[in-house]
């Protein structure tokens, strides 16, 4: 066989399509579709099993129980008991649980960051005692499970003195007892939303003014007092919106009309819209895909793999449209209802046209051996909140300290030496040279720690703190709606993690070194 015939036979081989049982593309896609089908079938099987098992016990699966009255009390939160003017429904109880989770998570993130940064920086201190002390802190806290720490905090806090009217380090102002810790607090009063909306409105104006000022600065040079004028305007806007926020009450009417407008959208419109959205997104993906296969000489010949991809995208879009239209109309009505409720809640937030104080303050108040509940007293950490909070803060701060230390070590030593050569003190060098650079390395793992802290709030269930998981458990113990409650857990925590990771990504993008 000569080399030319060999070459032509090879060319002919590559032209000829292989038989279907040796076509790798076909095999790959068959296996993939088979696996997808198996997974979906397994899910379908499990869900049907659960449904039939539940209905055998007389438990319908769904979300119809949202408006049922919650026949239980919550430990703490923005609403703990049922009252005629404010019903405590099941969904309201879950909402209170979510609010409690946020209360712990946000405060925990702030304090854990502060402590973690201090400890992480002092782990690299030149001072032997500081270095040793902070490394002992880190090793001690991160090597003991957080659950043990939380429960230990509860045991420790439960062993301090009982609550009496004259308890506390500073009587009447700061109270520390086995019922909890209470300090005076500032809270949002009735006028806050009027204040906020007016301030945002004025801020838009200020933003335009500032843009003009900056432009003038760049045109004329010199000091045109951009910073000071902006600050003065912001202060003025704050003062104006603090005292003269009454006119903003008209927003109540606006939101009320939006509420009724949203509620009057026919369900069919939403269904068709969602179906069109699914088909449209599918079509866009197909178009983008075809665009990517376009060469200067026209559309390239599509391979088998490309055809499978196109087919799969189209199939998914059609199935999604079908689901929205026929299988699951509840989705559309849920969208309508929740949009309506959202505007309803917003319109409730606005007052009756009187200018009211946006903020108010209060000292701790006691009633017969216990703290007065949330809303009419000082800033009270119940002992359950406190044990969860301390556990989360100290445990997470140890990890944050390690993250900070790693970030600082990642900055080249030359940077610190250069700063020292320029005559900066160690503190200055840290503040102005090292930390800003370390921040880029620190940010992604720091976001991870924030996420861990938020997820670990669910351990409040061990000490009886009413966060979302504990409230959810109470709910499904009452009405056996486990499947629904677990779906709420999942959506809640996924929303939290998406929020945190998108914030971190945003900051990361802003901080990224602009490379030429």
């Amino acid at each position: 066989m000569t080399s030319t015939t060999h070459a032509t036979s090879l060319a002919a081989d590559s032209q000829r399509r292989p038989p279907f049982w040796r076509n790798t593309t076909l095999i790959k896609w068959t296996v993939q579709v088979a696996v997808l089908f198996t997974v979906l079938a397994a899910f379908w099987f499990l869900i049907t099993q659960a449904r039939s098992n539940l209905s055998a016990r007389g438990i319908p699966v769904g979300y119809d129980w949202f408006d049922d009255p919650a026949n239980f009390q919550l430990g703490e939160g923005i609403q703990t008991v049922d009252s005629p003017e404010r019903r405590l429904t099941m969904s309201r109880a879950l909402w209170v649980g979510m609010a409690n989770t946020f209360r712990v998570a946000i405060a925990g993130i702030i304090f854990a960051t502060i402590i973690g940064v201090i400890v992480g920086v002092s782990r690299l201190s030149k001072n032997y005692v500081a270095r040793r002390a902070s490394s002992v802190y880190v090793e001690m806290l991160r090597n003991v499970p957080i659950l043990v720490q939380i429960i230990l905090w509860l045991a420790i806090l439960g062993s301090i003195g009982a609550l009496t009217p004259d308890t506390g380090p500073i009587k009447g102002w700061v109270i520390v007892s086995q019922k909890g810790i209470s300090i005076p607090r500032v809270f949002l009063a009735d006028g806050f939303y009027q204040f906020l909306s007016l301030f945002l409105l004025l801020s838009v104006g200020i933003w335009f003014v500032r843009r003009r000022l900056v432009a003038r600065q760049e045109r004329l040079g010199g000091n045109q007092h951009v910073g000071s004028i902006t600050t003065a305007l912001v202060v003025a806007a704050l003062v104006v919106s603090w005292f003269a926020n009454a006119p903003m009450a008209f927003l109540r009417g606006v939101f009320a009309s939006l509420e009724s407008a949203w509620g009057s959208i026919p369900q069919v419109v939403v269904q068709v819209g969602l179906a069109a959205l699914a088909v449209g997104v599918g079509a866009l993906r197909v178009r983008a895909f075809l665009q990517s296969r376009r060469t200067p000489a026209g559309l390239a010949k599509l391979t088998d793999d490309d055809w499978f991809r196109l087919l799969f995208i189209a199939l998914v879009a059609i199935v999604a449209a079908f689901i929205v239209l026929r299988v699951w109309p509840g989705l559309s009505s849920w969208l309508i209802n929740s949009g309506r409720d959202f505007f309803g809640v917003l319109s409730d937030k606005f007052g009756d046209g009187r200018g009211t104080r946006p903020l108010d303050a209060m000292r701790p108040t006691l009633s017969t051996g216990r703290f007065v509940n949330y809303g009419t007293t000082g800033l009270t950490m119940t002992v359950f909140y406190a044990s969860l909070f301390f556990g989360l803060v100290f445990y997470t701060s140890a990890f944050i300290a390690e993250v900070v230390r790693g970030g600082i070590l990642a900055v080249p030593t030359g940077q610190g030496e250069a700063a020292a050569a320029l005559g900066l003190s160690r503190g200055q060098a840290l503040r102005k040279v090292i930390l800003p650079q370390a921040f880029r390395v620190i940010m992604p793992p720091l976001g991870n720690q924030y996420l861990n802290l938020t997820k670990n709030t669910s351990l409040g269930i061990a000490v009886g703190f009413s966060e979302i998981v504990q409230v959810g458990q109470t709910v499904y113990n009452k009405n056996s709606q486990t499947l629904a409650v677990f779906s709420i857990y999942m959506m809640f925590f996924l929303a939290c993690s998406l929020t945190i990771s998108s914030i971190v990504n945003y900051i990361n993008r802003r901080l990224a070194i602009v490379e030429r």
Partner: protein
Amino acid sequence: MSTRNTPVRWVRENLFSSVGNSAQTVVFSLIILGLLRWLLGQAFAEESNWESVATNLRLLMAYNYPTGQFVRIWVSAGALFFAVGLSFATWNVRPMIGFRRLLTTLVGFGCFALICGLVTPGTTPSVVRTSMFAIGGVLVVGGLAAGRLVPRAGERNVGFGRLLVAVSGLAMAVVWLVPFGKHSFIDGAIAVERGVTIASSTKMPWTVLFAVLVSTFFAGRAIAVRIRKQLKIALIAWWVVGPAFVLFLVLRDPAFDWSRIWSVDVPIAAAFALGGGAVLYVLARPGREDLARVVGALLVGFALLHWVAGFAGWYGMLQKVRISFVLLAIAVLLVPTFAGERRARLRLSGGWIGLMVVLHWLITAINTPSTLVISAPPFIGGLVLTITIAYYVMLASFPLGVLLSLARTSKLPIFRVLSTGFVEVVRGVPLITVLFFFSIMLPLFLPRGMGISDLAAVFTGYTLFSAAYMAENLRGGLQSVRRGQFDASDALGLTTVQRTVFITLPQALRVAIPNLVGQAIATFKETSLIAIVGGFDILRIANSTIPNQPDFLGQKRPALLFVALVYFVFTYSMSKSAQSLEKKLEAGRVR
């Protein structure tokens, strides 16, 4: 010598070199001393009764395992010490430790004990305070004296074997000589015999255990000179299979129905092991790849048919037969990857036979009821449960994590989407919701008539959760494999599976080892969460069982502090060894 380090000079340079430095020294010293005093105050508060821990040690370690059967626990611990001693010798961990460094550590501990004795609040029992001073004094004086008296202390090293003997001897001396008192819980009332050493039913087994540890270490060192490689393989096999053996055969003591085993179980296992091994041996010959694929596809269809038949109720079949058919189908499909000459084929068949034997034995052991008479159903609890769960979760989630990470980095879109979705959803939710979900929903998901124990349900959930994190850790390793490696394996004509198994995975695993050890630590710590979902682990016992005993009503702090200490000892030693492992890996990497 002008640069000689005197303590005064060191203090001046490190602690009081400038005003800021001095201020740091003072502030941090005050904080750390205050915290230490507070912590000691919590441990030795007036109302704290440490007898609650001393009396309940057995409960904390093994929950309500029957006293008469306790020898089983000791045998299991013996198996563990045996394996640990051999592994130390085989892998030659830390052959030498600097003598000077050892002394510094001892003096440091001594100083810490002295400081504890000084700052401990007045509620501390005087015997504790005295022993703090005594231990601290002995360590400091002994350490300093040894540093002076031993000639050329800076150049000497201490071998690991000697250290092991010293530590074991010290532990035994403490157990045999120090009058801890005999604490026991008889008929719901505590009985304390003060001023004597601990009961011989405790100290005898511990002595034997330490003797086993030391003797296996030296024996292993002698053997490892000749057959290190075979010893390593045997030990890895024992670490993977041994714990299951200990758990289901020794601790659980299954009541085997031998006639059924000989008439049903053994024939099935033998048929699958030998038949499957023969099929694999025949198909693994080079040049029979296509035949293997055809047979594999047929077997997949056959295996699926059994499952469908099982759901539809056409004909009955033992579950383990179905599982074995699926495994055989997968093995046959993988045959072309491992095809080769006689040696490779024998290894393949041998691996299959080993897998079948272990699997069938495990299924039989799990499905056989236990003979142990225990008031509460789970036959293990306490620290044993904690360690067991952590160990098996890591073991079981490993293959799952490998599969998930491979799917996530693959080029096939559906696999990638499925795996990414699973990993991200699981990583987004807290472990406790996953555990609740599985302990409540898994029984509901099963077909009617099928049940699963609480602990098994929790274990399943924990494994899936851990697999998602494992996948994420392995993904980093997979992504670090250089592109040139793929090109080279393509140039050699390897198939995708061969490339993955022989080229990509080994390199990825090596890179991922430090992260995996970190995950093992996290898994061990998070095992404490089973206390919330109903397992009687060490935390649950300390938090709710002991404080409810009439003699120790409300005694939470001592037991919880003890639990924290136990976790700390395990986790800290794991993280320290992980650090040295990381250094070893760094040093071994040639670039």
